[in-house]
């Protein structure tokens, strides 16, 4: 135990020394992020974004005249570690707010700790359970699967599509989105005539797509999935010349998807994506344009890597937090909490955020843009 106390002391000393100019009245913000481990493709851009933005804000004079101090721990995607780090952030580092929980698992593990300590928490994970039911101190920035489903169904309705085929991945993402889509599909008067699934490592989806193709009356196909599965579906879909509109999910809204599926096969595929993905294509008068272009340029300059939606979640979380501290005029956790709940019209990368006592996400469907792949690039279709 002695070992832990002295070395932890030495560690925190090193941490303090590591910061350029620690003023005594710094506002301390904590983060526990999965920078390494299986969720690192999410956590790495998140952590880089937070560090970059905090530097940027401090260079511009900080918040309310005080500098921000960011304490980031890497939980490696392990919920147990995330919980320990959350305890450390509130008990030992005494931060005023916590950003993080890269995955749903780590977020859910953190929530009880911060709820007990009454410190506001902004999660970066997808699941709707994080903010539904509403917990006083818990907020989140990423849109939910259900919103992606709604966006797709809206577009289908607009195009007169009422009978569809589903082909879903059986992994966590695919299964969750499949469930969310079926829960709201009735509201749009759309019927599912075929419901197929594939495993996350399957290399060929021709049989399932042949089944769908053989069903009479199907007007479009939707593929809730993540990773390489949707790219294979898209390729098989083109090979079989199904000839119906193909909708993909927000899970593959990245340039990597077009590369993986091949520009030719992906031609005409529609999917909901965030403004960040098509930053350069947004019209001049788009309210999000300035924000996403600025973030994209800063991130790509600072890291030399292409910007990702996930880093955008962290961007929005920090912006919401800083905005709340400014409006609260104080760095008291309870004052920050109240101010976050009062966030109104804040433009982020995922959408325009307006929170309330009953809505701790604050995004509406305008957070998604309906995108279409044309000539190997993106096009906004609304």
């Amino acid at each position, binding site marked *: 135990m002695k070992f*832990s*106390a002295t070395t932890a002391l030495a560690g925190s000393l*090193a941490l303090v020394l590591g910061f350029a100019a620690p003023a005594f009245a710094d506002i301390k913000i904590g983060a526990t992020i999965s920078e390494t481990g299986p969720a690192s493709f999410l956590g790495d851009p998140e952590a880089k974004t937070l560090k970059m933005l905090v530097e940027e804000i401090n260079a511009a004079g900080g918040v309310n005249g005080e500098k921000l101090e960011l304490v980031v721990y890497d939980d490696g995607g392990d919920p147990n570690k995330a*919980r320990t*780090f959350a305890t450390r952030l509130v008990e030992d580092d005494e931060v005023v707010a916590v950003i993080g929980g890269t995955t749903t698992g780590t977020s859910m593990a953190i929530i009880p700790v911060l709820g007990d300590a009454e410190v506001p928490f902004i999660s970066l994970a997808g699941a709707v359970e994080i903010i539904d039911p509403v917990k006083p101190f818990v907020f989140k920035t990423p849109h939910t699967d259900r919103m992606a489903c709604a966006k797709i169904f809206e577009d289908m309705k607009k195009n007169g599509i009422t009978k569809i085929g589903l082909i879903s991945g059986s992994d*966590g993402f695919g299964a969750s989105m499949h469930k969310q889509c079926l829960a709201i599909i009735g509201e749009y008067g759309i019927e599912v005539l075929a419901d197929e699934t594939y495993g996350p490592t399957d290399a060929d989806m021709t049989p399932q797509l042949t089944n769908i193709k053989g069903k009479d009356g199907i007007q479009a196909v939707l593929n809730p999935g993540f990773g390489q599965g949707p790219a294979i579906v898209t390729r098989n879909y083109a090979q079989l010349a199904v000839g119906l509109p193909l909708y993909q999910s927000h899970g593959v809204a990245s340039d990597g998807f077009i590369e993986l599926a091949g520009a030719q096969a992906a031609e005409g595929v529609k999917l909901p994506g965030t403004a960040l993905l098509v930053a350069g294509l947004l019209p001049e008068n788009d309210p999000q344009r300035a924000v996403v272009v600025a973030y994209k340029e800063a991130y790509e300059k600072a890291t030399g890597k292409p910007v990702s939606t996930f880093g955008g979640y962290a961007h929005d979380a920090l912006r919401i937090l800083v905005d709340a501290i400014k409006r609260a005029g104080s760095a008291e956790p309870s004052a920050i909490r109240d101010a976050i709940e009062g966030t109104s019209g804040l433009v982020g990368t995922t959408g325009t955020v307006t929170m309330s006592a009953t809505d701790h996400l604050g995004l509406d469907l305008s957070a998604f843009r309906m995108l279409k792949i044309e000539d190997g690039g993106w096009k906004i279709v609304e």
Partner: protein
Amino acid sequence: MIMRLSSKATTLLILAAVIAIAPFFFPSSYYFRVGSLIFVNGLAVTGLVILIGYAGQISLGHAGFAGIGAYACALAPIHLGLHPALAAILGALLSAAIAFLVGRPILRLKGYYLAVASLGFGILVSMVLSNEAQLTGGPDGMAVPELGLRAVLKAVGIDLSNTEFWYAFSGLALVLGAWLALNLYHSPTGRALRALHGSEVAARTVGVDVAHYKLVAFVISAIYASVSGSLLALQNKFITPDVAGFMHSIEMVTMAVLGGAGSVLGAILGAAILTTLPQVLTVFQEYEQLMLGLVMMLVMIFMREGLLPSVAHRIRGRGE
């Protein structure tokens, strides 16, 4: 014999004293959290001392039993209406039964069959927990009900914070677990286990039922792992399939081997080091794995019995 008994008492005394005195040096309640994690890991590793240190068998799937214990605490209160404490006991019984069924055929074989089969078992449990999403919540995990003991203590005037309570409770569990393990060491079963560790052939020649005693060690260590998983779940009030993951199994074995698999106190020291290391190394987080590997290699090369027994030997050697 008197020497041995006193060494048992010394071990327990050191353990209890450290657990009781350490809180006086804690600057914040975060240290209680780290402490309780050490005790929870220490309990699982104490079970492995019985399997690895006493009986000389390696298991790479004990996180599977921790997973069973953890999910018993999450599922039994919901589906069977059991109190979480009873659910933990149910989990331990279930783990014992599964360890018996899995271990019985495997332990009749010689060599590394147990290591390989237990590896498969652990992965199987973690896959079931991940894939049976409608029951377990899948990779996103599920909530675990409150144990309720803290409220009872509060009613009789002992008001502890959540982290303090779990520090005390898991510390108590660890002392109890260590006491049982040390008693086992000096029992006829313990002697039989050590005999088959030394030489299976020799043990068989003097009439030790080798397969039976291996199974006993396997089942007992499974119960330890299960209880440790239950304590973790009840403490965190939330559980994900990571608890049953392969990495967790490896971590447990590493803790035991690092501190000294033959010694209860050594193994707990191993658990303490490997639990605090990631906390201490947050400043060098990119090098954490590297340093962990380096520490492990140095121990394996220079202290083959593990940290504590090697140091103890050296000190004793100097005294003579």
